[in-house]
């Protein structure tokens, strides 16, 4: 799940990246003429570029720290694109203003061509600015991770605290062969997780230890198991079996109608549609 971070931090990483790119710009020959009104010295060039890298690296670490690696990486590149475009537009605007002050000799025909060019260029720039904003907005409004949903089961098995939830509350999927299935997510508390060897899920009590259900796989912070849901009824139980690293086996069950009532409703609806 994408961390719910205040907009302030989004603004901060964008500002850090902008500062980084401005230092890069000041460290370049042409851009320094626009920004500083003079050519820079070789020492200044090294200094500005170093500052530029420092700010971009800080931006990177802030992104990774706040949004974790999985989201932070994407956000970082999005921020870089946005910041670089803003800096390019800013430098272009200053250069244009300066040219306007000192050069007013353009011919009418050239002016028209320039205006055409500007319209085209502005259109592209606006698109390029809006695109990362659109991506950032979509990332920000991503739906909650299933484990954060209100319907998730928060419980304890043995000494291990965990959260168990459906992938989509009350709505599974049907395979091409017509089998209704549901994916479940499981996350143990951080201190517990390394003590877990396996976790299994199935409907109704296992007959024996040789078939405890479908194993939870995927990364430890978001283990998933997909099980078939046909033949569910009001008495059906969802059985979680956990095997710890020291070989101890724990089991816990819930009545599906009580914990995930919408799933039964969805199954009934699915059956009725098949009958039609």
């Amino acid at each position, binding site marked *: 799940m994408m961390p719910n971070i205040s907009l302030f931090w989004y603004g901060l990483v964008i500002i850090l990246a902008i500062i980084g790119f401005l230092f890069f710009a000041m460290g370049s020959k042409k851009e320094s003429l626009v920004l500083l009104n003079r050519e820079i010295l070789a020492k200044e060039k090294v200094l500005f570029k170093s500052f530029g890298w420092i700010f971009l690296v800080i931006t990177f670490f802030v992104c990774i720290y706040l949004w974790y690696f999985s989201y932070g990486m994407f956000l970082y590149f999005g921020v870089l694109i946005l910041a670089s475009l803003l800096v390019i537009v800013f430098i272009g605007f200053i250069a244009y203003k300066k040219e306007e002050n000192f050069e007013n000799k353009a011919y009418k025909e050239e002016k028209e061509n320039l205006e055409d060019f500007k319209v085209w260029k502005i259109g592209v720039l606006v698109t390029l600015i809006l695109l990362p904003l659109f991506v950032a907005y979509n990332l920000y409004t991503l739906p909650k991770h299933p484990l954060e949903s209100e319907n998730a089961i928060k419980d304890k098995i043995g000494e291990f605290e965990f959260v168990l939830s459906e992938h989509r509350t009350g709505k599974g999927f049907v395979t091409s062969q017509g089998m209704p299935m549901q994916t479940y997510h499981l996350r143990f508390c951080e201190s517990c997780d390394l003590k877990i060897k396996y976790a299994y899920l199935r409907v*109704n009590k296992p007959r024996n230890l040789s078939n405890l259900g479908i194993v939870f796989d995927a990364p430890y912070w978001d283990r998933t198991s997909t099980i078939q849901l046909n033949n569910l009824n009001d008495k059906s139980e969802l059985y979680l079996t956990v095997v710890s690293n020291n070989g101890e086996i724990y089991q816990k069950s819930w009545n599906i109608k009580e914990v995930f009532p919408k799933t039964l409703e969805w199954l009934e609806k699915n059956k009725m549609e098949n009958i039609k």
Partner: protein
Amino acid sequence: MIKMIKRFMFLGLFVLPNLALAHSPFFMCEYDDGKIFCEGGYSDGSRASGVKIKLLNNDGKVLEEKKLDELSSVSFTKPNEDFYILFDGGTGHSVEVEMGDISGI
């Protein structure tokens, strides 16, 4: 050499991510005219041809053992005692169908 690199890139980009996708087994049976017809498969729609299917009694004794055919299906003659059918995909990938869950019985 370039061809080989392209092949590896193709593998890396398209084949390996698909292999990494998890797929879970399912198994269902129905009774008709003295026989039990079962079909197995995986959640991604793929078939489970070749997977062992065991017909067991309540004591865990294997009464009959077959494999899913090319169409991912198998059939058994209904035994005269209580039973259940096991889709034996290995530990953590097996599914049981109880006698009471078989439609038509």
